[in-house]
């Protein structure tokens, strides 16, 4: 059974890596074939929660991922509406994880896609991410807990999938309701149906395999269990092979697509993303998948991501190719401080004392 698990995680990773490069070749932005943080940010723009004209598009990849996880969880009877584990704190963690990710310019998924395209800045980000997960694990060992979940009304669990269906309809209907970028990354789009169906399939296998990039490092550090880690490695390997084959691999710090070269502001925000993801119990991609299976806490976290993304662009916290912003640097530090406060506030001494 262990072997079957491993195969499933690795297959999911390979699919993610291949889709990441493939969707880029089909029109998505550079090294951003598939990115949870960037695409939620684009969706926030499409909903006019922010007005950064270059990053507005309701990404079908996000919709597909959630609906794929939703549909398979119905089939396997793992759709279980549960919630109530410190929702507001989860919202805040989601908010600050997103702000941090947008200072780095990517979630853990895009970080790996960037690494596999030769973007050395992303390797700096990886160091930060691992440090962040390590710090988070220390809090878990100290007895950190946001409290347990309880069963919820089925309607609560259906809310997020329903919102995605509405978004999909609005997206197909064309630019009547939703804003769409005319230029910039938001205007770079893989064909809707290919992106949606590919994400739908990945949502299915991601739910089955429980793939989580934070979980990979967490389990490796905390339990010496590498099986989720192989999934992350598989993303890298698949993306590397596809990038090499497509001539999209360039090893450098400078001139990478939608990336900046300030090492400190690549490192520190990813410490926040890693740390925050441990406190949340899953990386951004895992939160999407869990949300599809009726997890209300993950759904609340997604709203934190969405609002965090809107704040990032409304208050010029997000970086650009030109580099980080003063506000973004302050927000990165504030994010880490808030996470530390939450970490300490929710730690109970009795766990391992």
């Amino acid at each position, binding site marked *: *059974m262990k072997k079957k*698990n491993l195969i*499933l995680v690795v297959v999911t990773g390979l699919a993610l890596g291949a889709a990441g490069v493939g969707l880029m070749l089909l029109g998505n932005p550079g090294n951003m074939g598939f990115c949870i943080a960037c695409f939620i940010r684009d969706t926030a723009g499409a909903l006019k929660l922010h007005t950064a004209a270059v990053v507005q598009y309701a990404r079908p990849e996000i919709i597909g991922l959630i609906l794929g996880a939703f549909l398979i969880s119905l089939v396997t009877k*793992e759709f*279980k509406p549960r919630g109530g*584990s410190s929702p507001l704190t989860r919202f805040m963690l989601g908010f600050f994880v997103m702000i941090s990710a947008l200072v780095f310019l990517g979630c853990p998924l895009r970080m790996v896609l960037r690494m596999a395209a030769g973007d050395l800045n992303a390797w700096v980000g990886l160091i930060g991410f691992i440090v962040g997960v390590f710090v988070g694990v220390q809090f*878990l*060992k100290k*007895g*950190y*807990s*946001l*409290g*347990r*979940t*309880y*069963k919820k009304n089925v309607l609560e669990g259906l809310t997020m999938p329903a919102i995605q269906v509405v978004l999909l309809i609005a997206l197909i209907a064309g630019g009547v309701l939703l804003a769409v970028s005319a230029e910039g990354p938001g205007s770079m789009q893989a064909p809707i149906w290919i992106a949606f169906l590919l994400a739908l399939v990945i949502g299915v296998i991601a739910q*089955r*395999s*429980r793939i*989580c990039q934070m*979980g990979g490092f*967490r*389990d490796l550090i*905390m*339990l010496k*269990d590498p*099986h*989720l880690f192989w999934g992350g490695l598989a993303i890298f390997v698949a993306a590397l092979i596809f990038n090499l084959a497509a001539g999209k691999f360039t090893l450098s710090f400078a001139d990478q697509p939608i990336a900046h070269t300030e090492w400190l502001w690549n490192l520190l925000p990813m410490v926040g993303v890693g740390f925050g993801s441990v406190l949340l*119990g899953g990386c951004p991609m895992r939160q999407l998948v*869990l949300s599809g*299976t009726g997890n209300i806490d993950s759904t609340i976290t997604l709203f934190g991501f969405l609002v965090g993304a809107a704040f990032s662009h409304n208050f010029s916290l997000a970086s650009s190719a030109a580099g980080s912003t003063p506000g973004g640097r302050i927000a990165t530090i504030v994010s880490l401080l808030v996470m530390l406060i939450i970490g300490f506030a929710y730690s*109970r001494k*009795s*766990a*391992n004392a």
Partner: protein
Amino acid sequence: MTSSVILPTINLMKYIATFYTHFGAFSFNRRLEKLGDESVKLIAAPRKISVSCGTAVSFSLEFNPETMADEDTEAIYLVEDDIFTLIYHNE
């Protein structure tokens, strides 16, 4: 470790406990250590049986909800030849 030489109890059952929180897993692990289960250890939750927190505990002392479970404990499974039988569930 001496566990390979001195078996902790005659009970050769294998159980896996799943949890709503990591804290629950750590606390459970520690309680079982105190109860003298030398085989108890934290493991990554088997994919088959849990979508909650990713950490589980495997142990071999006969399961007793009174002394072992708390509100963070989600479920206990008896494991035989890769077959998981649910013996305790806490909604």
